[in-house]
């Protein structure tokens, strides 16, 4: 049971980041517990979050939930703690204790504390400027448009950076491997592809790539234009279909 408690604690620590907002929340909760008069507000925004937090840290509860759902989503129990409304309400109440210009200063100070304690979402490194109205890389859109034959299945091997986006844009393009390749821990379930590995190499082993592409019924092979080739694709019956947004698209002329 000790280990389950430690596990839940580790999940909590991972969730709260620096812990500054969680600290503010706990302070707000205690302050509201002491000062809030409304029975209903106390029930919904003080007692209920406490019950949820107690459940979250309960080793037996954690053990049962983990057994059914695995380790990855236990943190979502913490979504049931209403951090945003409790903190916003506590901030407004604190402001109301002051009058005139003092209220404005307290409000600005509280806003500043929130900003300093949290982390601006737009600073996330996973954000980038959208290249189009689909929010998928323009290269994926243009390559799909070029090779797609509406109503018919086309199969193409793509480089890793385009894999997540191809089928978000076109359902008609199949791939010999998919997102499974991008998550290393999934390899324990047998998600491996030699073709994927070969297309990641700096120098492409053309003979083997062509052999695997044909084995897996690929109509096209796509890779970044600058890659070195061990031999020419043409020697093995593939021809350069087009170069699109910096990607060479080779088609199997034997099909």
């Amino acid at each position, binding site marked *: 049971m000790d280990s389950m408690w430690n596990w839940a604690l580790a999940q909590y620590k991972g969730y709260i980041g620096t812990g500054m907002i969680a600290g503010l929340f706990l302070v707000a909760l205690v302050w509201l517990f002491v000062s809030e008069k409304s029975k209903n507000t106390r*029930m919904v925004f003080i007692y209920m979050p406490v019950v949820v937090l107690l459940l979250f840290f309960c080793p037996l509860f954690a053990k049962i939930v983990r057994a059914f759902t695995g380790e990855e989503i236990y943190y979502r129990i913490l979504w049931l703690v209403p951090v945003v409304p409790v903190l916003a309400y506590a901030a407004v109440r604190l402001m109301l204790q002051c009058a005139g210009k003092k209220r404005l200063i307290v409000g600005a100070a509280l806003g500043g504390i929130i900003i300093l304690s949290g982390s601006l979402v737009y600073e*996330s490194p996973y954000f980038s400027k959208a290249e189009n109205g689909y929010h998928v890389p323009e290269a994926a859109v243009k390559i799909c448009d070029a090779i797609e034959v509406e109503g018919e299945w086309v199969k193409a091997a793509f480089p890793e950076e385009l894999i997540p986006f191809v089928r978000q844009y076109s359902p008609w393009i199949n*791939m010999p491997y998919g997102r499974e390749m991008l998550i290393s821990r999934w390899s324990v379930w047998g998600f491996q592809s030699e073709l994927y590995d070969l297309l990641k190499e700096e120098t492409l082993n053309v003979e083997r790539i062509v052999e695997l592409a044909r084995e897996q019924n690929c109509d096209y092979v796509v890779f970044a234009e600058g890659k070195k080739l061990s031999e020419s694709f043409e020697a093995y019956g593939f021809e350069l279909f087009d170069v699109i947004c910096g990607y060479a698209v080779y088609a199997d002329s034997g099909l």
Partner: protein
Amino acid sequence: MLVLQIGILLLFMAAIPLGVGAGIASFVDGQKNNAGFMWMAGYLVLLAVFQFVSVPLVIKGVRFSTLVLWFVVLCILLSVAGIAVRLQYMRRHPVLRLVKEKTGKREIILWAVFGALLLLQLFMAGYLTFADGDDSYFVTVATIADGTDTLYFYLPYTGGTTSLDMRHALAPFPLYIAFLARVTGLHTATVAHIVLPVVFIPLTYCIYGLIGSRLLKGKSRQLPVFMIFTELLILWGNYSLYTAETFLMTRTRQGKAALGNIVVPAFFFLVYLAGERLAENKKVEKSLWMLLFCLTTFSCLCSTFGGFLTAVLFGAFGLCALITYKRWRLLLPLVFCLLPAAVYMGMYMILK
């Protein structure tokens, strides 16, 4: 064409939910003329209905067009029914013009600040893109449904046919994206990455606004301040990758984001309303229980874990309400509200 598409979006994401919600609001004390409540209530009902309709159709393996047809018809019927109920209510209760407090200059400025920050968030939702691997499952499921007119028939990651994946088929939120794409003619990727954030982010703030209006009852002039703090907490809520606030701003198109940012706040708002009734020694309105029932169903649409999370919430509420108000009669409607979660979790256990 774009004007028509925006018009259809407004119809399905604003007018129809408002129509449905207007009928329900007629039965909820204190919310009868609250457009925000109507919008939220309409959404809870419509997405619950979407779950009720889509799961059997997915299991049956019909075409996606059949689901679209069913849901369009139900949307129209429900909104017409909602408007009819509303008109009847208005005939019985002639509206006395509400004497509203005059909005002060300070309030106008604060609401303008809130509005400007909200507009910034909506602009950023279109201008920036967030690379999330899960999109290659959820958005692709929507793209396949709309493009091939099938339901969970093809493998999202690679293509090729597959047997029904019950875990995901019981929480078919991506089909709602596909539905919006089909009725508007927009690409599913556009609906997922731009349309949903532009609608769901304001919907989330609308629900927080409803919560704030109850918490600050009698101090409504402070509501814009509450809303600005809410915005700051959401915008600076990325203190880890896992917070509900991060999910709202980065993965709005995934069902789990709707779970954390629409279902959970709506739950707190609805039980707060229920608690207000209990505190006044009044019976909780049936319409509130019905909305909580819809909320549970909606949570199952969002994620297979959704039913469990709402069960935890209902358990926490039940325990706290029993201790606070000592009303054992609450147990029966609470169990009723949890039925959808029990049914979908049971189906998962049996069919997986």
